[in-house]
C-alpha cells in the first residue's frame, strides 16, 4: 500500500487538483480568471481577423467592383430606356386622347366632312396669330375653309399649298367672326387683338349681356358654319356715352397649346367682298 502511495501520489495530487479545478469551473468560480486569460487572445484574434478581411477584400474587390459597376450601367441604361418609353407612351396617350376627342366631335356633327391636321408651326411675325398645319390642297383643303377642334372654333384657312396650309386664328387682330349668343338674343361681331384676347363688339346697349353667356357662330357673312362654339363672355364693358357695348370673351379653344385641328371641307364659304362698298 505504501509502495503504491509512494509511486502514484504525484498523479493522485494532480488528479485531485484537476478535479478541484473542474469543480470550481463548473461552479462558475473561475469565470473571472477565464475572462482575464481569454481577453488578450480574443483581442489578438480580432486584430488578425480585421487585417485578414481587409486584405481579402482588397484582393477580391476589383472583380466584384467591376461586376457591380457593369450591373449598375446595365440597370441605368435599362432605366433610361424605360423612362424614354414612358414619355413616349404618355405622348402617344395624349395624342390618342386628342384624336379621340376630334373623332367624337366629328361624329357629333355627321352632316360635315372633316380632314384632321396637325399644327406644325406658327407665323414668324409676332403681330399675327396664324398657325401652319400639315395638310394642304392635296388633301382637299381650300382657302376659306373653317377650322375647328373638339372644343370649338379655331379659325379659317388663309393660304394653301400642296401639303400645308396657313390658318388665321380667331384671336388674330385681323380676324372678325359673326357670332350670336346661344340664347339667340343677339348677333354681334367677335374680333381678335394684338395680344390674342378676343372680344365681342357691336352689341347694342339695350341687350343684357352677362358673364357666362355662351357664344356660337352665326351663319351671317357666310364665312363660318352655324352653331360652332366660340367661347363664353367673361366681363362686360358698358359705357353710356357709346353706341355699343363690348365684352371680353374666353375662347373655348386654348390657342397656345393647339396641336391638332379639324378642317371642315364640305363648307363653301361665300365671298361677299364684291358686295362690300
Amino acid at each position, binding site marked *: 500500500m505504501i509502495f503504491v502511495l509512494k509511486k502514484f501520489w504525484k498523479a493522485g495530487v494532480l488528479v485531485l487538483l484537476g478535479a478541484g479545478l473542474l469543480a470550481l469551473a463548473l461552479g462558475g468560480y473561475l469565470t473571472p480568471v477565464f475572462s482575464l486569460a481569454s481577453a488578450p487572445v480574443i483581442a489578438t484574434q480580432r486584430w488578425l481577423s480585421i487585417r485578414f478581411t481587409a486584405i481579402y477584400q482588397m484582393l477580391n474587390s476589383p472583380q466584384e467592383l467591376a461586376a457591380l459597376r457593369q450591373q449598375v450601367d446595365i440597370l441605368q441604361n435599362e432605366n433610361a430606356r424605360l423612362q424614354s418609353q414612358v414619355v413616349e407612351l404618355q405622348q402617344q396617350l395624349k395624342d390618342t386622347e386628342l384624336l379621340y376627342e376630334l373623332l367624337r366631335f366629328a361624329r357629333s356633327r355627321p352632316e360635315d366632312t372633316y380632314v384632321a391636321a396637325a399644327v*406644325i408651326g406658327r*407665323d*414668324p*411675325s*409676332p403681330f399675327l396669330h396664324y398657325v401652319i398645319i400639315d395638310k394642304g390642297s392635296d388633301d382637299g383643303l381650300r382657302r376659306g375653309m373653317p377650322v375647328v377642334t373638339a372644343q370649338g372654333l379655331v379659325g379659317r384657312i388663309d393660304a394653301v399649298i400642296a401639303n400645308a396650309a396657313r390658318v388665321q386664328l380667331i384671336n388674330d387682330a385681323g380676324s372678325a367672326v359673326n357670332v350670336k349668343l346661344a340664347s339667340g338674343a343677339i348677333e354681334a361681331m367677335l*374680333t381678335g387683338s394684338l395680344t*390674342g384676347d378676343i372680344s365681342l363688339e357691336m352689341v347694342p346697349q339695350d341687350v343684357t349681356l352677362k358673364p357666362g353667356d355662351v357664344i356660337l357662330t352665326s351663319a351671317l357673312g357666310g364665312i363660318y358654319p352655324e352653331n360652332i362654339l366660340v367661347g363664353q363672355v367673361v366681363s362686360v364693358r358698358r359705357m353710356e356715352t357709346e353706341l355699343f357695348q363690348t365684352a371680353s370673351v374666353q375662347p373655348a379653344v386654348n390657342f397656345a397649346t393647339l396641336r391638332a385641328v379639324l378642317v371642315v371641307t364640305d363648307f363653301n364659304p361665300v365671298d361677299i367682298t364684291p358686295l362690300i362698298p
Partner: protein
Amino acid sequence: MAVILGIPVMILVVIFQTSVFRSLVLLHGTADLVLLVIIAVAIRRHDTTSIAWALMAGLMVGFISGVPWFVFPLTYLGVAVLARFLSSQVWQTPVLAMFLTTLIGTVLSEGFQWITLRVQGVPLPMVESINLVLLPGLLLNLLLALPVYALVADLTRSVSLEEVT
C-alpha cells in the same frame, strides 16, 4: 459653296423659328432667329454670301408668313447691308456690331411689319405693339445675339476651312 450651304441652313433656321422660337414668348414678343443668323453671317463674311442668305431667308419667311411677302426679303436685305456697313466701317469689333445691328435690325424689321399690317387695315395699337411686342422681342434678340454669333462664327469658319482644303 457658302451660298449653296445657305439653303439648308436657312431652311433649318426657318423651321426652328416657326416651330420652336415662335412659341417661346416674352409678353407677346418673340426672338427672330432668322434675323440674328443673317446679321451674324453679314458680320462674319463681307462678300455676297450674306446678301444671298438674307434674300433666301426673306423669301422663305415671306412665303410662310401672313405678312405681305415682300416685307421680310426687304427687311433682311436691308439688315444684311446695314450689318456689313457697321462691321466694316463703324464698329471694328464684331460683337459690338452684332449688338448694334440686332438693336437697329429688330426695330426696322418689326416696325416695317407693323406699318405694312396697319396699311392693310389690321388694327394694331402703336403703344401696345411697342410695349408688348417690339421691346420684349428686342430683349430676346439681344439675349440670343451672342450665342447665335458664336454658332455662326463656328459655321463660317468650318466652311472657310473646307474651301481652303
